């Protein structure tokens, strides 16, 4: 099909996923700050209110906690809300409802009700988003039984995973990285799912396994390219669903390569990257040829000044250096070469601030 070759931006893929589900199922509705406004959550909700009306596409009061409860309540009586937060950080106000209520409602009432709720949250980054607008808290949500946690890295997966999340009967935490929003890629038209709980080998290799989350998948792929030029074959796995984790795929890969590197968008300490390392250490220990390694944020709040954020965010060069060290080579070889072409506080040259 020719249509399947079309390219969409990540934000458009999200938009199309919502549109597809709303057209298909009248129970699906969207709620969030600024959802129907002229910017439409960085484009991801543009045009939906025009199409589906003010009842199904709602702005809301700045009441993150209460509105999450409202979403849960509506889900209990048969609706399928999609709640949107422009930053993960704002959603911290709603943790009680997400974790005590949404995550447990099915379990604590013996399976009688379910909470088909998708909570979209965007991780901010760069252009001085700073300490309170750029946290990447997937570890938190993944720690809580009853929540599914999804982080797409490509437009194709964004659409397919979001459709699967909306059609899922459990609460899904759907985390989108702001730096992916302008990335384009092939996105099939119409309805399709990328199933939850399945990771994906996005590049094959036999010398080490790099498992990556969200935006770090792109950095891992860039690293793998350079490594390949040096004769190192890095297999890159895009985790895609953090909970439930596709342990099988990761173990199979590590059993083949004998080496594990984890690249995550979050802080290293007690982060999601620790879980992958721990599982592999527990379950694939005999296969490991060298110590596993994490490339993640240093354990410090996100600074605002662009000069500091340059040192805060690891990128392809860090991944490649870590990989080289795991293989027993010197890490620093070609660091400079892999440094990003654009200033490190914007995702691409088209981005001129402020959000």
């Amino acid at each position: 099909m020719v249509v399947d070759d079309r390219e969409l931006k990540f934000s458009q893929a999200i938009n199309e996923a919502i549109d597809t589900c709303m057209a298909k199922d009248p129970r699906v509705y969207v709620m969030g700050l600024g959802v129907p406004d002229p910017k439409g959550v960085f484009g991801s909700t543009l045009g939906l209110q025009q199409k589906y009306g003010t009842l199904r596409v709602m702005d809301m009061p700045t009441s993150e906690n209460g509105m999450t409860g409202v979403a849960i309540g509506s889900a209990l009586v048969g609706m399928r809300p999609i709640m949107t937060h422009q930053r993960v950080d704002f959603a911290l106000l709603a943790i009680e409802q997400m974790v005590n209520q949404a995550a447990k409602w099915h379990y604590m009432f013996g399976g009688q009700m379910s909470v088909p709720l998708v909570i979209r949250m965007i991780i901010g980054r760069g252009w001085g988003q700073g300490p309170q607008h750029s946290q990447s808290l997937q570890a938190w949500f993944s720690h809580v039984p009853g929540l599914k946690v999804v982080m797409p890295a490509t437009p194709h997966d964004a659409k397919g995973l979001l459709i699967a999340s909306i059609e899922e009967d459990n609460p899904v935490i759907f985390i989108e990285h702001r730096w992916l929003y302008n990335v384009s890629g092939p996105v099939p038209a119409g309805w399709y799912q990328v199933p939850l709980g399945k990771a994906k080998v996005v590049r094959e290799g036999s010398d080490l396994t790099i498992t990556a989350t969200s935006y770090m998948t792109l950095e891992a792929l860039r690293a793998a390219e350079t490594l390949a030029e040096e004769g190192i074959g890095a297999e890159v796995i895009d985790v895609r669903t953090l909970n439930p984790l596709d342990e099988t795929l990761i173990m199979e890969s590590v059993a083949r390569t004998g080496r594990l590197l984890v690249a995550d968008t979050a802080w290293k300490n007690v982060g999601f990257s620790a879980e992958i390392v721990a599982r592999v250490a527990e379950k694939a220990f005999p296969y490991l040829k060298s110590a596993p390694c994490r490339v993640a944020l240093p354990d410090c709040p996100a600074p605002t000044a662009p000069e500091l954020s340059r040192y805060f965010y690891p990128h392809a060069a860090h991944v490649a250096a870590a990989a080289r060290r795991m293989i027993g080579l010197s890490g620093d070889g070609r660091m400079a070469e892999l440094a990003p072409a654009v200033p490190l506080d914007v995702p691409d040259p088209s981005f001129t601030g402020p959000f």
Partner: protein
Amino acid sequence: MEREILKRLFSEMLRIRMVEEKIAALYPEQEMRCPVHLCIGQEAIAVGTCANLARDDYVLSGHRSHGHYLAKGGDLKAMMAELYGKVTGCSKGKGGSMHLVDLSAGFLGATPIVGSTIPIGVGAALGTVMRGEGRVTVVFFGEAATEEGVFHESINLAALKKLPVVFVCENNFYSVYSPLAVRQPEGRQIFELAKGYGVESHQADGNDVVEVYEAAERAVRKARRGGGPTFLEFKTYRWREHCGPYYDNDLGYRSEAEFQEWRQRCPIDRMKERLVRESLLRQGDISEMAASLEAEIREAVVFAKESPAPEEEQLFDHICSP
């Protein structure tokens, strides 16, 4: 008011009282191994409110929910079995006293984080509107829940969207052992909070079931015809300890005199006197009523005690919906 309604209000209150007394009596056996928050003394609010609801209207509640569950028509056996941690419990033993539910009765759930079911109730109301249903949703909560920000977020949304929801605040003056004076400003009545949102708001005697019934009737009717939310504050008093089966006035956080004053205003005694005075019921009728309730409750306890406990593998049931 119709005689049949008066009699029903009385018997429902008596039923809740007797269930709670039975729990208090059996709790020291240590077979109900979960926290229980008894509503003895506060029965009129649950009963007077729920008497205005249809079976498919929704109710949500918090930690002190036995009365609300029963008044809405929740299954007694399933509740007792839940308190005993049995698979036959309304939540299959996963929840205990603090997590009651009976979907067939429109009792959508109770959870014990103070204030947290308030937005969920408002969301249920929003959901019913979106689905074009004519249901009304009632959320019960204690006065401490009005101190949680989420209460305000919820009532703001209910007012904004004119949702068919009735907020029922049972003001029993204490949050655990803490009096209102250390939690809310002096000289301000709780029902006035709601007025700031432009929400119709009333205060009434929570120990007078007829007063409750009438206030709730107006609120429910208004909600049902699309008139939006109402906030009702009912003053009342919890007789027993905050959590558990005993009296605790000896602790000193409240006075015996205060307790006795409220004890005199027992909603059930007051109603009984009226019914007898107006010859709607004779003492004999009441004894009969009590005997049949006692039999029902005893049967529920037997059911609960004899039901099987959950098995190990059930631990992992229902983490996620399939």
